[in-house]
């Protein structure tokens, strides 16, 4: 595995920047410039690159879709949220319609925010492509078809030009897919969700979203420590604060940055990506959350090797 590309990182519902939010960023940038003049475009670019991410960028608003790039001929995708649309555009730009591709799609669960990009995943309409949809839910194919049924969508699933196959996976059992060993892990979420551990080529990536952790269940905790063990990257559902996750939003099926850090520390993971961002959190809030999470990791490290903390955003590429 060479890298991970985040195409959609927002939880529950896609969002977009508002005009007011863009205006706020422009004002923040001009305030930071403080009347400075730039001699060249590169000097201006350097200035912009030095601004806080919440000012110069955005975490984005597409729902869950993450690509694992192996360097091999087949594509690995986790979830089909709305981020699948820009992913599809990138694949078409890279390969066109004349070069058939194989896509392996791993579905965490059947909630709409994790499936809604599939009707916009253009490779499904191109004859010659092969799409293998992997998952642990009995009703996986039914759910994929359901959202493309009238009156919900104008193009029926039967119009797909690609060959679409389904592969039922068994939790806890390793599966060989595209040169990787992929192991699903059952997670606590309404209707169940499944995380996936991808291992191969000397690297390990864990995709674990829409997963609530019952802190009082030590067996569950130990299971996740094993699932995350020595991972190079853990993509983790950090939608809520810990206080929310154990009080007013208990049983809502999501977790927190604090629990993500603790599990990754216990597992000896190398890097944690905060993921499935709460839609009401704006870029500044997510930026503060990242800073606080890094601080939490530092003050609770206790002699362990540092855990690198990042916050996933749409378009982020992580080299493994």
């Amino acid at each position, binding site marked *: 595995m060479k890298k991970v590309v985040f195409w959609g990182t927002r939880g529950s519902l896609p969002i977009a920047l508002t005009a007011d939010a863009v205006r706020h960023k422009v004002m923040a940038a001009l305030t930071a410039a403080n009347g400075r003049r730039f001699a060249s475009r590169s000097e201006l670019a350097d200035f912009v690159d030095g601004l806080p991410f919440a000012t110069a960028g955005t975490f984005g608003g597409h729902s869950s879709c993450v690509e694992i790039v192996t360097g091999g001929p087949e594509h690995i995708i986790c979830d089909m949220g709305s981020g699948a649309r820009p992913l599809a555009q990138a694949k078409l730009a890279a390969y066109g319609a004349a070069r058939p591709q194989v896509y392996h799609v791993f579905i965490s669960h059947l909630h709409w925010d994790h499936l809604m990009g599939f009707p916009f995943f253009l490779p499904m309409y191109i004859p010659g492509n092969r799409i293998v949809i992997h998952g642990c839910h009995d009703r996986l194919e039914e759910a994929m078809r359901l959202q493309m049924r009238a009156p919900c969508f104008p193009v029926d699933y039967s119009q797909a030009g690609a060959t679409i196959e389904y592969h039922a996976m068994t939790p806890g059992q390793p599966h060989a897919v595209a040169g990787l060993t992929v192991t699903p892990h059952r997670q606590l979420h309404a209707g169940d969700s499944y995380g996936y551990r991808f291992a191969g080529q000397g690297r390990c990536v864990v995709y674990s979203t829409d997963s609530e952790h019952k802190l*009082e269940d030590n067996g569950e905790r130990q299971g996740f420590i094993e699932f995350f063990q020595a991972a190079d990257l853990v993509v983790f559902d950090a939608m809520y604060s*810990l206080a929310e996750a154990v009080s007013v939003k208990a049983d809502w099926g999501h977790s*927190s940055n*604090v629990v993500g850090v*603790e599990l990754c520390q216990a597992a000896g993971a190398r890097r944690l990506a905060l993921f499935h961002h709460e839609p009401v959190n704006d870029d500044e809030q997510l930026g503060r959350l990242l800073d*606080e999470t890094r601080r*939490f990791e530092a*003050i609770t490290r206790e002699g362990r090797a540092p855990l690198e903390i990042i916050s996933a955003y749409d378009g982020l590429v992580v080299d493994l």
Partner: protein
Amino acid sequence: MEDQRVTLLPVRVVGGVTVAAARGRLDHLTAGALGAALAPLLAGCKAGSPALLLDLSAVDYMSSLGLRTLVVASRQAAAQGGRFAVAGMQPLVAEIFAIARLNLVMPCYVDVDGACAQLA
């Protein structure tokens, strides 16, 4: 397996407030023991009864499960019409509290005396 590295010191009454003091690490190994020690105090934390204050000044570490134990205590007290608060956190514990946003879901006081003055 739980151990006893967290201690709940003898309970005292300060200005009409029931004060219990914890000591040590409050983590995955010890949170259960603290929860068990708090249970009888929480049972009596009802409407019209003295507020229950947990003195954390001798707690030097708190994990997510320790934090959850306090949220559960706070919610139980509130459900019974009682009042539960914490006080005296060391700077590192206070920082963990803030990062976890626990300071938004339960009253937190700088020290026991100030808390008792407010809660009495």
